[in-house]
């Protein structure tokens, strides 16, 4: 009896004591490594950017002329371009993205059909960005060009719509980015809508609310922080997108009010100029990279914070 117990203990004990330990080390190492690599990237970019940081200081952020051959570096046009394309993308993607999320979280369609639609929308996220770029060149650019010609002729006196209209423009990049961030908005919004407790919905119905009153009066407000988080994460993605934007935006460093004017973003600037850069230009590009990393990290932190806040809030009701 006693020996039996001991041997059983020996086997089970050894397995349960040793194996999880190794496993724990491996996973811990992976987790620490990813944090370490993030810090390392930041540090390396910072080191490379140092000469430009020292020489241009904060004037780098407000300067509006980028002339590598004159060692004049001001990143303002690219900051504006990054912000403007991301905002256009969100304005265009948020209404349909939210509509799709609501549609998929209600029982308008039988479950398999809903799952299929969800799958298709999420597939949009799987398309490589260079393919979006090519699609933009062949489809969106001609469309925006003719829309631009028509609009600038009639409403050219409004600064936002002033001409001449270009196919490679801020608006073109914004439209394609909208499509690229749509799955992010839909997926996260949908899961926060689904997470709204049944009891709330039933309560609304019990008080005599119609389906749409329940959606807009109870479900959407409860899920709102999740939708905000989805929007912020989409903003982060839109700001960092490189390839498709570089192919579509017209890569200009001139500041313009017009939606139909070529522009540039921080990411497209890096993609365009890094390969052939030397000397101070490398430092200036690294400084621009640092600004971009800081921007996207801030945005992602904000998104994450809001998402946590939602979870905590709905946890109480659940």
């Amino acid at each position, binding site marked *: 009896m006693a020996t039996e117990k001991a041997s059983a203990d020996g086997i089970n004990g050894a397995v349960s004591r040793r194996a999880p330990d190794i496993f724990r080390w491996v996973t811990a190492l992976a987790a620490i490594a990813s944090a370490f690599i993030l810090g390392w990237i930041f540090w390396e970019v910072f080191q490379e950017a140092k000469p430009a940081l020292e020489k241009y200081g904060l004037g780098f952020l407000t300067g509006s*002329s*980028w*002339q*590598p*051959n*004159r060692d004049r570096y001001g990143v303002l046009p690219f900051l504006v371009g990054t912000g403007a394309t991301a905002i256009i993308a969100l304005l265009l993607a948020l209404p349909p993205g939210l509509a799709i999320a609501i549609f998929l979280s209600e029982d308008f369609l039988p479950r398999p059909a809903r799952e299929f639609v969800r799958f298709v929308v999420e597939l949009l996220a799987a398309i490589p960005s260079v393919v979006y770029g090519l699609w933009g*060149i062949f489809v969106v*650019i*001609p469309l925006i*060009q003719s829309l631009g010609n028509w609009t600038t002729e009639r409403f050219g006196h409004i600064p936002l719509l002033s001409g*001449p209209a*270009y*196919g*490679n423009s801020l608006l073109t990049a914004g439209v394609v980015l909208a499509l690229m961030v749509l799955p992010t908005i839909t997926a996260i919004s949908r899961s926060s809508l689904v997470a709204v407790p049944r009891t709330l919905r039933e309560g609304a119905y019990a008080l005599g609310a119609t389906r749409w009153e329940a959606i807009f009066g109870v479900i959407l407000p409860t899920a709102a922080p999740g939708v905000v988080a989805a929007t912020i994460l989409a903003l982060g993605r839109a700001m960092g997108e490189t390839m498709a934007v*570089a*192919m579509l935006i*017209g*890569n*200009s*460093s*001139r500041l313009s009010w017009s939606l139909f004017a*070529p522009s*540039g973003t921080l990411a*497209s600037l890096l*993609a*365009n*100029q890094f*390969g*052939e*850069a*030397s000397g101070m*230009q490398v430092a200036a590009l690294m400084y621009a990279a640092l600004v971009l990393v800081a921007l996207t990290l801030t945005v992602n932190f904000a998104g994450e914070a809001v998402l946590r806040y939602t979870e905590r809030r709905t946890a109480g009701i659940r």
Partner: protein
Amino acid sequence: MKKFLLPLAAFTAALAAPLPAQQLSGAGATFPAPIYQRWAVEYNKQIPGIQVNYQSVGSGAGVKNFLQGVVDFGASDAAMTDEEMAKSPRGAVLVPATAGSVVLAYNLEGVAGLKLTRAALAGIFLGKINKWNDPAIVAANPGVPLPAKPINVAYRSDGSGTTFVFTQHLAAISPEFDEEVGFDKSVTFPVGVGGKGNEGVTALIKQTPGTIGYVEFGYAQQNKLSVAALENKSGSFVPPTPESGAAALASVEMPENLRVWPIDPEAPEAYPITTFSWLLLYKKYDDAAKLKALKDFVTYGLTEGQSFAVELGYIPLPEAVVAKANAALSSIE
């Protein structure tokens, strides 16, 4: 079991088979990549023992790789500055290996053989001339139906040797351009739209009527773009051809360091915007076999290799340049 082992054995045998005796790796400019890669293929057919691998990573990256010593040779459209050459631990020798021209390609229906004066060319890229029927363009093109449409300028958004050569010429012919824009591998044009790479600019030109942009001759040829004849220093309008390019190259005297640009050639039959493209070699190679293979390969490129130039859209080097390049090649050890 045997069935399974047989292909495996063949595979390991293939792995164990002697590798080509000599591998040469080079990296650099994208502009001459097609001709260098052609040399590599053709030379390998003649001498299977030597395998040359050229990666077109851009002139800037080519110089970087060369200075880091991770390649056997580099290549650059902008040669190397004295400062850069001083940084090379094993010395540096510039060998002009091929040449090409930068052309002004445009998209205007019904307009063939557009002529651009020096003032018109600089004016367009400064944004001062913005309509196709501007008097400065019309005056040089009597009888040509130029539309009253806006001129859409296309430029390279990525840093490139093509931009370097083009802006260097513009800065030489127009003090105003020199003042406002200057020249480099990436500059900021006051007008227009940027496309990434020759293919990006070509797409911009093809897609939008009324667009003009600068690309390498080979690209314009492949894509059947209309190209403009440019006014050269002696006042004649010259279309880009292998002959007019050769005339431009022949008009400059190669200096001791073999680094020169025909920025604004004087000869009346010379096309104004041409450039050499250089191979970057080390002054010293430790491996004698590698040195010999490299010398043989470059010699092949400078002699037989020049015959591929015209077909690929390049300009064959003038004999005088080949002689000097060969002399430079024999100085490495």
